[in-house]
């Protein structure tokens, strides 16, 4: 059962969460379904796509305010129309809602330079499972007033709160995107990454492995003269064989997005070892963003995959109990009831 008709206003969402009788939940807040699996049996979707609209886009302050059900692509288009882009650079064109992007805690390959997605969200409004209002942060870039629920709820997947409104940081569209690439054997990846660490920071680093060969790719953004100069520096630092390629606008999203595969988490050092190991396998395929610790491989994971990591810890458990004692929002840890399975 979907309660989409009830989600056109925040007041109605509150009523759904607070009232006894009617749909009882537990509810899973849902957007366009691009970033999460469908609700498990026994959990009702609380579809928020009707709660949509960019309420304010301030080019001077570089901040926008939008309702959670606003499609990300629409937000991106409106920002691009005034020469701005959402922070940090994330693979766009993949659909979904702004609330979904936030609640999924999507990672940005540019995190080491630009910050994580959670660092780009300036404020959040929403409701707890019992319908109590949540407000944190706002439209200014520095804000330590009260608990940082803005960061806490990023990645909370609708299990702690229904997100209704977000204040998001913007930046100017980059004038130039180029990459420096070098092809090398998988066993040389460690040396290349160590060399990169001593060079001007690229916006993002990606490693593509295919059949024992690897390509180390460093993305650079900025004004044209300085981006080119940094690229030249990186090219020299990476050694013979490195080359500079342009990244056309339409190629930026695929550059930032790993293809499908087994998702793995590892440190930079861990990824160096893993690439070396996969490189010995004739069918070894991997796309790795080593600086943010994630990648996808064609092989079974060497370590625990992301999905096996528990959802939050002791703090999350306690907050969930306090904010949602009746369990009106879905619980990623709760086993599906037997009667539903049968």
């Amino acid at each position: 059962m979907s309660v989409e008709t009830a989600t056109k206003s925040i007041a109605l969402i509150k009523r759904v969460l607070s009232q006894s009788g009617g749909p009882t939940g537990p509810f899973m807040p849902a957007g366009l379904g691009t970033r999460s699996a469908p609700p498990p049996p026994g959990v009702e979707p609380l579809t928020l796509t009707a709660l949509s609209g960019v309420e304010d886009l301030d080019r001077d302050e570089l901040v926008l305010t939008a309702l959670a059900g606003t499609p990300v692509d629409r937000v991106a288009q409106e920002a691009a129309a005034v020469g701005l882009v959402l922070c940090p650079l994330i693979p766009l064109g993949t659909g979904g809602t702004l609330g979904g992007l936030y609640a999924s805690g999507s990672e940005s390959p540019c995190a080491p330079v630009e910050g994580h997605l959670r660092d780009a969200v300036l404020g959040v409004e929403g409701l707890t499972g019992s319908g109590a209002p949540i407000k944190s942060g706002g439209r200014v870039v520095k804000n330590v007033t009260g608990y940082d629920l803005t960061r806490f709820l990023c990645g909370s997947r609708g299990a702690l709160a229904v997100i209704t409104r977000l204040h998001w940081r913007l930046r100017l569209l980059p004038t130039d995107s180029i990459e420096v690439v070098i092809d090398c054997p998988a066993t040389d990846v460690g040396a290349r990454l160590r060399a990169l660490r001593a060079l001007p920071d690229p916006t993002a680093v990606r490693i593509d492995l295919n059949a024992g060969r690897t390509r180390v790719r460093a993305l650079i953004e900025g004004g044209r003269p300085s981006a080119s100069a940094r690229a030249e520096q990186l090219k020299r630092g990476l050694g013979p064989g490195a080359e500079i390629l342009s990244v056309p606008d339409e190629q930026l999203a695929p550059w930032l997005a790993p293809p499908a595969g087994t998702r793995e988490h590892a440190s930079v050092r861990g990824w160096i070892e893993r690439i070396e190991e996969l490189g010995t396998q004739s069918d070894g395929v991997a796309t790795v963003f080593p600086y943010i610790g994630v990648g996808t491989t064609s092989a079974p994971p060497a370590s625990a995959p992301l999905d096996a990591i528990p959802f939050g810890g002791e703090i999350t458990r306690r907050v969930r109990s306090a904010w949602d004692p009746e369990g009106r929002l879905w619980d990623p840890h709760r086993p599906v009831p037997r009667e539903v399975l049968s």
Partner: protein
Amino acid sequence: MPGRSDAALFKTLARILPRTRIITDSGERSLYDTDGLALYRGVPGAVLLLENAEEVIAAVRACHHHEVPFVPRGAGTGLSGGAVPLDEAWILDVTGMDRIIEIDPLESLARIEPGVVNLDLDRAASDYGLRYAPDPSSQRACTLGGNIAENSGGPHCFRHGMTTRHILALEVVLPDGTLTSLGSRSGATAGPDERGLFVGSEGTLGIAIEATVALIRRPEQVRTFLASFSSLAASCRAVSRIIASGARPAALEILDRLTIAAVEASVFRAGYPTDAEAVLLVEGEGSPAEIEEETAHVRAACSAEGALTFEEADDLEARTRLWRGRKGAFGAMGRVARDLYVLDGVVPRRALADVIEKIAAIGKKYELILSNVFHAGDGNLHPNISFDARDPEQTTRVLAAGAEILELCVAAGGTLSGEHGIGIEKRDHMGLVFTELELETQTRLRDAIDPRGLSNPGKVFPGGRSCVEAGHRGPGHAARVERIIG
């Protein structure tokens, strides 16, 4: 439960800690009665000097068992009364936990204990071509544990972000003694960002006993610019122009006329033009090509706003001189009056000039000496009120003016604090930002983590315990604060 028992707690801890690290003497305890804010004090029931994680865990568990409130404390340089013990809470001093456990250049991170001084980490990282970016004015003294508790900022946070952006993972003792790990070495989180919630929670959710922090590459080149203006409004408009141009300076700081005069008359003299109404200090960093781009943007913006003078500095000596005035500004204000109340409000950048004008009017209304040093790029104001805390009537006017300034910031679309935290100072102003129900959601969260309300009680939220004295706290305090921020 037996209820609060300080005597039983002492007995328990005496079995764990050497007697010399349990301070009970009233004179020594009174040294911990305040922090960097010159307005509030409260004497702790006792002070525990803790030197390792096991001791912190044992102390917190004992406090929890005996229902004795406690206040985690680093160097005590905070500016919102966050480390002031209320209701004779016990101080858990972690300045003895000052080990840098690991620096990993490949992963660009360090593992540290909470008592490590901010600047010490930065210096240690420099051996590897790395640095720790957040640089609060007190960075020579403040500890990273305190920075984590307050989500501290600093001039270079304009480009590099606040403390929270640089904390990858934490080992934390919750107020009931439960140990928990937050975040990860890559900074990624699985599910809610518990790490992000803990940073900036002002000691109300427990104590960090270890942190993994991100280090960033030291810039290849740095250039510092100083522009002077005939009006504060022009300097603020120049900041907006710089940002709109696409430049990404590391810092954008403004000092007003009164501050310039105080700095130039002090040991922090930096050569700022004393006939200017404001100076704008900008720092660019990056590759030589990036620096040239930034220079063109900054020069054009300052010129468009009619800068009176424009200076560029590349070499370390000249840059250090330009920064000396900014970094010594709070210390220099000691020449104006014996006490200084450093406020911390945030407004949208476009409102800066208007709000500063109104702040000046508030100063006049209350007949106070008011100056401004601020992080203009972030819209983070630091109106400074010079006063004599020995005069209760004057102190009352200072507090009233401070409250009005905070109201002004919120009304302009801003907020109560950009980097100092709420502490005691602003807890009763939280209603300006949040409704009662919104605050209740936050206090429910706090109560879920700390049902007995033992960890730094009376802070952040209105209606907290109020056993605190406002005003002058006797001789010695001014000297101590001067050491910290000077």
